[in-house]
Structures are given as C-alpha cells and as structure tokens.
C-alpha cells in the first residue's frame, strides 16, 4: 500500500494522511465491532449503518478494495443476506489491522 501516492491524490502531505489513517483505523475498528455485535443480534440496520461509515471513509481515503467490499457488505446487510455477512466483516477487520501494522511497524 503506497501511502505517499494516496496522500498525493488527496493533496495532503504524508503526515496529514497518516493522522487521517489513525482516525480511520480507530473508527473502523469500532464500527466493525459494532457490526459484529449487531450480526449476533440479527440487527441488519445497525450492521448496514456501521459498514456504511467504513464505506464512506475508505472511499474518500482511496482504499478502493475496502470501499468495494464495504459497499457489497452494506447491500447484503440491507437485504438480510446473513450468510454473506460474517466472513467479509472478519476480512475487513484483517485489512484494517494490516493498515494499523503498516502505520506502526
């Protein structure tokens, strides 16, 4: 993942971009935990809302792979496709953890 290129795309310097990434990691981790609890409670609206938040943030940061996964996941949650939801949430958690690891090598 080329943070410098993503920062350039937003017209930000690398330090500014990394600050945003810290915020993204924190908020997305909280959103994913919220989504996982909501899956247990079969609360589709809360899952969709938590994933919607990750979708918006990842898209604006330029993480298009996460954005696409979140977009599909939000649609699956809204359509109550419970069997499609759990694995992608865990995959997103892994991706967010990878970003965090790159920020704190």
């Amino acid at each position, binding site marked *: 993942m080329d943070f410098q290129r993503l920062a350039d*795309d*937003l*017209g*930000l310097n690398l330090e*500014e971009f990394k*600050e*945003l990434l810290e*915020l*993204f990691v924190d*908020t997305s981790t909280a959103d994913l935990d919220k989504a996982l609890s909501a899956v247990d409670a079969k609360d589709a609206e809360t899952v969709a809302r938590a994933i*919607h*938040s990750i*979708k*918006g*943030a990842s*898209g*604006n*940061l*330029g993480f298009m792979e996460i*954005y696409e996964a979140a977009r599909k996941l939000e649609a699956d949650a809204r359509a109550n496709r419970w069997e499609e939801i759990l694995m992608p949430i865990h995959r997103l958690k892994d991706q967010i953890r990878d970003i965090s690891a790159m920020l704190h090598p």
Partner: protein
Amino acid sequence: MMEKKSSMSFPILIVEDNPVSRNILYKILANAGYDVVATENGHEALKVFRDRFFPIILSDWLMPGMDGIELCRAIRKMQLPGYIFFVLLTAKDSKADIIEGLKAGADDYLTKPVLHAELTARIRTGIRILELEKSLQSRRRGNQGFFRDRPLDRML
C-alpha cells in the same frame, strides 16, 4: 468543530458526520487556502450558521438527526444577506436522488468517494456564481443611487 481562518472572502461550512471524511474535506479545503469550519450534523451546522454567515455549504446527505436535505430546506427558508451555494455530498447517484436533492434547493452535488480535484473545481464554480451575485447586487445598489439622485422630472 474545526476552524481555519484565511483571507478568502467566501468561507465554507462543512457538514459531515463521518469523522474521517469530515477531516479529509476540511484538510483539502484548508490546504487550498479556504476559510473552513467543519461541523458534525445539520443541527450543529445551523447553530454555527446563526452566528456567522457562510456563502458556501458542503453537506453530506445521510446523517443522523438532521440530514443534508433537511438542512438545505431550512437554509432556503431563511432571510439571508446573500445567496448560499449549497453542495450536497452523496453516495446516492441515481437520477431520482439527484433530482430530489436539487428540488430541495441544492445547487450542485458531489458523489462519494469525493475526488480532490473535483471538490476544488466545484467550489470554484460556486465562487464564480457568488461573485457574479455580489457584482449584480452592488450594481443594483449603484443604480438605485443614480435614480434617487436624479428624479425623473429633472431628467426630462
């Protein structure tokens, strides 16, 4: 609430509930030299707006509490000292959604994810329109003065 002052004469009010997206918008516009204030939802935006006039509002559509459409309608109902260029940010991109936004009084819309270059280009479009409005207003004031100083019977 975040705030950055600069010499730009068209301050921008950002309304976005997502903290990452709000910060991105704020940083892009502040780095471009704009005077920016960022708020988290429609209610907070209205509170800030009551104390200070913003000719440009950049608002997310879907937000808890007061959403972007409701905020736009509320702003359009107010008696204000000048025009407000209202841009809606949305992940919605169907024609019906866009029409709903424009009908509520939005001047323009940006679909998310927002591109840096597109954002600043749309803001510049807004400023062109606001500058035009400003020059029309001052010309109108000038004309009113001209006719007030020259009653019609004396001109004939």
